[in-house]
């Protein structure tokens, strides 16, 4: 198994299937009275979040705790980072404290890769800027697999603010890797020009895409990342690109509605649509814990290699 998880692109189809299969077992653990196994007893997982996040941080925290690992939450507000400490010094400090894994979220694309070059701990990318969010893509694939026999030929429509979405990028690469086809849909201002290079089709006509979609994946409008006006008004966006009840009726029978959260109800997704039975948004949250347990287990459950060996290794290829 890989040492660091920086991008979904590191994983071949076989590795993705192994992660999802192992996650099935961890989902069963989540249904037990005692939802905890001793697999990672004595390991330390640090959550290093430079950006606000509730669900991802809590999901990783629960995942690590259910594996009996010790979890340290390092929120940067009010910490040494607020006093001006650099990412490198923070990383080396965590390293010196004996962290086995560092889960990092950062507003800068590439921060996890940079971090992985400095530390011997495993680095897990929990979202970096507008680059990637690989664990989200894996939990999405896990959720899709619960409803479809195969990924082969599966059509996934990813709708909305693709430009600012690390989820869209990771999911597109992931779906393509397992044999499905992604269509990115949104206003031209919010579809990055390099999108076809991710292996996706691009469409600017939502109503034409919906009847052919097995999965309709709505993206959050990330107003906090938009530094200019990408569309005239929220109302117009909602009317042109939002998933309304009428648009749900255009989806094929059995098509799933997904959203990475947090939702802007009434913007990209109508409130009653979010609560439909075919909307699996809360399943995505539940499955997120199992998938993150699977990753932590597979990445940390192997032999501990002496630090100096890994340090030499890290000089060469941090991504493996």
């Amino acid at each position, binding site marked *: 198994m890989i040492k660091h998880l920086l991008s979904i692109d590191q994983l071949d189809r076989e590795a993705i299937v192994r992660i999802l299969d192992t996650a099935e077992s961890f989902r069963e653990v989540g249904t037990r009275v005692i939802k905890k196994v001793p697999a990672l007893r004595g390991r330390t997982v640090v959550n290093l979040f430079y950006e606000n996040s509730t669900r991802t941080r809590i999901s990783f925290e629960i995942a690590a705790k259910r594996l009996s690992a010790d979890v340290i939450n390092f929120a940067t507000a009010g910490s040494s980072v607020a006093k001006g400490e650099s990412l490198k010094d923070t990383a080396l400090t965590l390293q010196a404290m004996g962290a086995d894994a560092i889960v990092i979220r950062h507003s800068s694309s590439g921060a996890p890769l940079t971090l992985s070059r400095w530390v011997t701990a495993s680095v897990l990318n929990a979202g970096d800027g507008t680059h990637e969010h690989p664990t989200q893509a894996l939990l999405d694939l896990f959720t899709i697999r619960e409803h479809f026999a195969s990924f082969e030929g599966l059509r996934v429509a990813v709708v909305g603010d693709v430009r600012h979405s690390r989820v869209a990028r990771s999911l597109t690469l992931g779906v393509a890797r397992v044999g499905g086809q992604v269509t990115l849909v949104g206003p031209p201002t919010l579809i990055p020009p390099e999108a076809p290079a991710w292996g996706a089709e691009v469409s600017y006509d939502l109503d034409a895409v919906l009847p052919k979609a097995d999965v309709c994946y709505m993206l959050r409008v990330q107003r906090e990342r938009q530094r200019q006006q990408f569309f005239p008004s929220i109302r117009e966006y909602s009317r042109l690109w939002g998933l309304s009840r009428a648009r749900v009726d255009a989806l094929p029978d059995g098509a799933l509605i997904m959203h990475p959260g947090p939702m802007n109800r009434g913007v990209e997704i109508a409130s009653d649509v979010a609560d439909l039975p075919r909307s699996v948004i809360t399943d995505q949250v539940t499955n997120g814990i199992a998938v993150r347990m699977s990753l932590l*287990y597979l990445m940390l459950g192997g032999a501990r290699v002496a630090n100096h060996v890994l340090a030499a290794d890290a000089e060469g290829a941090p991504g493996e």
Partner: protein
Amino acid sequence: MTFVERGRLLDEGEIRRSVTRIAHEILERNKGAGRLVLIGIAARGDDLARRLAAEIDRIEGVEVPVGALDITFYRDDIGLRGEAPEVHETSIDLDITGTTVVLVDDVLFTGRTVRAAMDALVDFGRPRAIQLAVLVDRGHRELPIRADFVGKNVPTRRDEDVVVRLKEVDGEDAVVVGERGEKELEPA
């Protein structure tokens, strides 16, 4: 990983008769099948547990609940092996508190699997008693553990390997002894 077969310990008929005898012994020891639960250790222990349950049903006319237990997360060698060990399915759909659990495994060797299984079981509830049934006991215990019901005791060398093959997964019923080629430890 390679496996070179050196000899057959049990054939199909002998396995069938062992399972039948163990089923009788379980019923005799527990004075019937009331409050009895069979839990097989994956992989192959769960298949054996289902066979034992079918035998008990045939003999006593009682359907004994069967579960499958994966002990991977309770192993004592996580972090010592090259890769994280492969995980199997666990399904225990009933409350085992107050029941007599018969743990079922194919081969009893060092006893470490059974130790892990008992640790896992107590996370599911508090059985009145735990008993152990194995198809083959090959010796070389590293922990103070013994089986209550044994299909066949087989003296082996430590470096030999005993493999149970079952129709459900392997297409044939046989217990064979052989030697395993060394698997190279890959760094994680």
